């Protein structure tokens, strides 16, 4: 009786899902071709080789550890074209060229993918309703200028990129000519730009982490950009910048932690930027504005541990209600706002940005005197680098914890002891 029951269940399952094909063959293209429109192709655990074309509605899903390796370098491993409702799930792809190229597809989901040693991870062109989530892209380990992008999306609409990780690529997420995009929960490290937006509209960039790139977030010629709660830290290389806004309009940068960068936020040729409630911590220069309009506002931010808080070419930056760790004024009425304005202008800071070697003179008596003179001379100024209502209490929502580098500390102590020994011997002899 039990045997008959088992057979009945098996036949029922088969009839309920006629579209399910179990694949254990290496001839993946034949399996794709054999899958009916709208069907599900389940790949059994194993290794597959080749370059494949999908031109129909279908789902490819891994059952176990499925590894697919490209055979032709100049061809994408997967080409998905002129179709709709396509999903790839749970695959590991190895290709020295492009892993997945999508052209003119509506409704596509790429999820739980691992892309190894790729020149370029995913490229999407002229598509709509694209969801990319839990994708890991690892470049070949070349310099970013010799790599492709992790995820690149061109002239498409309604895009979501979430919970993905990109390492060692040119731009983690490159967006060009895209309308309506959400980038959330991603991490990009060791690349050129974490996210790179060009000619795009209506983008939301939330809860991402960009670290150890040339620039964390590069936004150019784009409109209506909302940047919130991202950790943009340690872009401390030769040209390292946390966020660059170039020729961009209507940008809101809010509640982000921007720490340890050479320049935290660069605003160029840009209007209507509102940077609110961010933490600028331990950057060489926290905010730099050039050639921008007067409509840019920095309010309720915390500036702590930066060498230079703000620098500008005299126009384009309004400061209001920010906390500055080097503010020396007092708050007699206790309303949390300093009774004297804060002057962000620092002549020495400006020089130091141009000649980094000057940082060795920070806090030397002459520099302290110069900063005091700046404060006194510009207090009554109405230039845009004066905050008339600085906060006296820091309300830090996000704070970057600093970890001691024990290795560097040990070397430093050893060198110090060595110097002391040499000095003692030279004194005694």
């Amino acid at each position, binding site marked *: 009786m039990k045997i008959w029951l088992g057979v009945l269940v098996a036949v029922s399952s088969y009839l309920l899902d006629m579209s399910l094909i179990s694949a254990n063959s290496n001839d993946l293209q034949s399996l794709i071709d054999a899958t009916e429109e709208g069907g599900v192709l389940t790949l059994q655990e194993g290794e597959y080789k080749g370059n494949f074309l999908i031109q129909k509605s279908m789902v490819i899903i891994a059952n176990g550890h499925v590894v697919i390796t490209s055979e032709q370098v100049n061809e994408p491993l997967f080409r998905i074209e002129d179709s709709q409702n396509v999903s790839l799930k749970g695959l590991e792809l190895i290709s020295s060229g492009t892993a997945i190229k999508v052209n003119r597809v509506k409704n596509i989901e790429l999820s739980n993918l691992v892309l190894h040693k790729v020149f370029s991870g995913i490229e999407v062109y002229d598509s709509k309703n694209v969801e990319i989530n839990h994708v890991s892209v690892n470049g070949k380990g070349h*310099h970013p200028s010799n790599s492709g992008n992790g995820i690149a999306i061109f002239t498409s609409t309604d895009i979501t990129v979430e919970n993905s990780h990109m390492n060692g690529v040119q731009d983690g997420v490159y967006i060009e000519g895209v309308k309506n995009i959400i980038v959330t929960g991603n991490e990009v490290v060791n690349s050129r730009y974490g996210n790179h937006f060009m000619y795009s509209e209506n983008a939301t960039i939330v809860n991402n982490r960009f670290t150890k790139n040339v*620039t964390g977030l590069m936004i150019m010629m784009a409109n209506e950009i909302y940047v919130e709660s991202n950790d943009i830290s340690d872009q401390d290389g*030769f*040209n390292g910048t946390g966020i*660059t806004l170039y020729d961009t309009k209507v940008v809101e940068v809010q509640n982000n932690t921007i720490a340890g960068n050479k320049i935290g936020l660069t605003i160029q040729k840009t209007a209507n930027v509102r940077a609110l409630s961010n933490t600028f911590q331990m950057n060489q220069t926290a905010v730099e504005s050039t050639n921008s309009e007067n409509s840019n506002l920095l309010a309720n931010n915390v500036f702590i541990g930066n060498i230079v808080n703000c620098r500008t070419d005299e126009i384009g930056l309004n400061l209001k209600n920010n906390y500055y760790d080097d503010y020396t004024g007092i708050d007699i009425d206790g309303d949390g706002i300093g009774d004297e304005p804060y002057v962000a202008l620092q002549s020495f800071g400006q020089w130091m940005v141009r000649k980094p070697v000057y940082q060795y003179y920070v806090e030397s008596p002459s520099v302290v005197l110069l900063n005091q003179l700046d404060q006194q001379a510009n207090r009554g100024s109405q230039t845009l680098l004066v905050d008339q209502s600085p906060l006296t209490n820091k309300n830090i929502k996000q704070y970057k914890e600093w970890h001691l580098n024990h290795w560097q500390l040990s070397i430093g102590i050893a060198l110090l002891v060595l110097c002391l020994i040499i000095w003692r011997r030279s004194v005694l002899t």
Partner: protein
Amino acid sequence: MKWKLVLVVGLLMILAACSSKEPRDINSATDVCEVCNMSVSSEEHAAQIVMDNGDYTVFDDLGCLMEFMMDADASEIGGAFVKDASENKWLNIEKATYVYSEGNWTPMNYGVLAFDSKKSAENWIEKEGMGKLLSYDDLQGFEWGVHH
């Protein structure tokens, strides 16, 4: 006496080399566009200006160089160069021939490529099946920006 003459001539040659107005190689790891701040990652689209005092200013896209030149003091510019789209060499921007097409990818998407001769540019247009021929003078009035 002769060796002194050789020494002087040698020194003069070294000095002449130091003040050369020749373009330099791009270092994609460190070079950043003077106008838009982007890394000069795509060397085949790079451009540069050699200032009269020997300083170099590099650009990721020909459009950025043209924007810089609009505001620059012409008397301070020693030479301006752009990379040839068909082979790895620098071209003087005044002597190059250009092809614009919306489909030409360049780092800032200005879509203008440079060629060493009109013939090369025409060959490229014929091969790609798209593009409009431009001269250096045409670039002065060209609308650099979004062409999508």
